[in-house]
């Protein structure tokens, strides 16, 4: 990150003046934390006593046999507290908030996963907490809303715009500019104005640091390729980080192909040709926007990948050819999820399943002496409503109809 918050041509901090001082404070605090080994120690200790770090690296023996190519390893971020990599980021930011002496946190959430994680962190640290969530997502993800509320957070349904993630982000910024003095905005992914992309990537880098040691111990060397799904880009940056310095390791980001790139109903920013450079939500990256610069609606079966922008750090790696980008369609995702459940007894989140799709496409072409790592960013059992729906499971539908009738009485 240069002094203006750029990574190559991407990034920056396009923020209203009222936030200027807050960002200065945040940057200072962040740099201090990075330079203070005690901070990272405290972070590691909390992650290993409150969450379950290091998360395991699972050798997927059955999938490996099935595809007959590379040894498939799965980095198990699903086993984090709250069920996804999002915990890494929020706990890190929580420690920073404590240092800054603020008492309230806010966050946006799409899938609900980051909102859950933030509400959890807030409960643990004793912060007040407000979560902004598009009204559409509130409806789709009611279980997460329930838990956030139970953990003491206020969930505000955002009724503007497309009523999804990007609108929740806008609304969170509006809260922030109003309540800057006591409030920290816990950004959920490696996007937004500097220093968020770098800071979030730093907290997530714990994934790759662990994975490097684990694959060395298990496989006896570096992996050939690493696959991660890319919504905002935080889990991808998390696992890629440590391996950027390993030229032999190919890094593959997988975006949401939705109903297919040709359909226009997708969220492919870097792996297609529909996106163009833009500036929104505080940073410059490749956005899905029309010729006037208005953001487009996106689509994915995975709410967490359904976003118009993408990490500026990834945009830089994309431009420089260090990270390759691919996409997976909704249909491919359901198939990969199905196979993974049946063969390994593991339920990846719909988001994570995107990475599985691409790994499955490429594994057969590699040799059994090579290893690949799939970053399983989260678990899918939290997504029962979406997954059972996507599979069109008739017993599930009957169950819901029945429950609905009971509650209607």
């Amino acid at each position: 990150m240069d002094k203006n918050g750029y990574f190559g041509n991407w990034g920056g901090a396009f923020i209203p003046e009222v936030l200027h001082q807050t960002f200065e404070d945040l940057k200072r605090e962040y740099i201090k934390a990075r330079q203070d080994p005690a901070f990272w120690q405290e972070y590691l200790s909390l992650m290993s006593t409150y969450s379950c770090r290091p998360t395991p690296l699972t050798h997927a023996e059955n999938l490996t046999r099935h595809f007959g190519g590379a040894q498939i390893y799965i980095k198990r971020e699903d086993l984090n507290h709250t069920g996804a990599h999002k915990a890494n980021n929020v706990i890190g930011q929580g420690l920073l908030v404590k240092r800054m002496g603020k008492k309230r946190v806010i966050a946006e959430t799409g899938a609900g996963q980051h909102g859950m994680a933030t509400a959890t962190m807030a409960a643990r640290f004793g912060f007040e907490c407000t979560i902004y969530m598009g009204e559409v997502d509130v409806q789709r993800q009611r279980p997460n809303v329930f838990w956030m509320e139970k953990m003491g957070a206020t969930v505000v349904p955002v009724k503007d715009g497309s009523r999804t993630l990007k609108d929740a982000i806008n609304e969170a910024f509006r809260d922030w500019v109003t309540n800057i003095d006591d409030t920290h905005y816990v950004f959920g992914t490696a996007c937004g104005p500097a220093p968020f992309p770098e800071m979030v990537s730093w907290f997530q880098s714990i994934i790759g640091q662990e994975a490097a040691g684990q694959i060395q111990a298990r496989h006896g060397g570096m992996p050939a390729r690493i696959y991660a799904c890319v919504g905002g880009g935080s889990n991808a940056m998390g696992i890629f980080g440590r391996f950027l310095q390993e030229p032999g390791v190919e890094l593959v980001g997988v975006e949401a192909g939705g109903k297919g790139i040709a359909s226009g109903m997708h969220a492919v920013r870097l792996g297609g040709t529909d996106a163009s450079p833009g500036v929104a939500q505080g940073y410059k990256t490749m956005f899905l926007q029309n010729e006037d610069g208005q953001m487009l609606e996106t689509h994915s079966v995975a709410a967490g990948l359904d976003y118009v922008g993408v990490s500026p750090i990834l945009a830089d790696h994309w431009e420089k050819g260090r990270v390759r980008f691919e996409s997976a369609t909704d249909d491919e995702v359901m198939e990969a999820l199905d196979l993974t459940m049946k063969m390994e007894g593991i339920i990846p989140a719909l988001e994570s399943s995107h990475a599985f799709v691409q790994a499955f496409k490429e594994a057969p072409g590699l040799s059994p002496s090579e290893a690949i790592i799939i970053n399983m960013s989260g678990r899918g059992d939290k997504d029962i409503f979406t997954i059972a729906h996507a599979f069109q499971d008739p017993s599930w539908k009957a169950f819901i109809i029945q429950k609905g009738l009971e509650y209607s009485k």
Partner: protein
Amino acid sequence: MNLEQELKERLQKKDILLMTHIVLGYPSFEVNREVVRQMVDNGVDCIEMQLPFSEPMADGPVILKANQDSLANGTKIADCLAFGAEMAAIHAIPFLFMTYYNIIFKYGESAFFAQAKEAGIKGLIVPDLPPEQGESFFRLADEQQIAPILIFAPTSTDARMRELDGFGRGFIYCVARRGVTGKKSEFGADFSDYLGRCRAATAKPIAVGFGIQDRDDIRVLIGKADMAVIGSQTIRLVDSKGAAAVGPFIAGLREASAKPQSC
């Protein structure tokens, strides 16, 4: 005559100037046209015309909704530029464009500035573009002699204000409080201190915006600020009472004896 000179000239004759705000294409360009006419006829000194953006991060609910509805109506940036040119040609007050940076960036900064220049636009307000991030923007503004309006906030330090002032032209837009557009502001002792700090940091005229809704608000500003900015309030008025209500409202803002307006 540049924007700063023009405003200073107007200030010779008035104790405070009025700047108003419209969202282009909301509810329609026809209504915009009528609203601008009423504003100009009733003594508004400057109008900021907002080019709608799908992600108006610094705006509150009223302007946010106006942005969205305008886009839903099919408003294009080219239409907005043309409308700006039309207004500047027929009304003898300075017109500004207000928008978010992506609109300009995506249009192409050079092309945008060239068009704005040709349209006779005097200044640009871009709330999400801090000077550190706008090297080419500020260079083009200078080249085309279109004033980039910079913003002071209550959270800006004195040093930051001086830094911003170095980049700004025309006037300084002081946001009255933390938060987004549209909510009422309180003008207490803190506010006076803040305006004092603003004044000390710049020799340019200072405008105060965010939450200015009635004659009383404006009376408070006289002597402390050079220009009052009326934003969401006229949108609310047009929504509830139609474009024809704008003229009397504006006229009432400066009548010493007028009752507080409400809508």
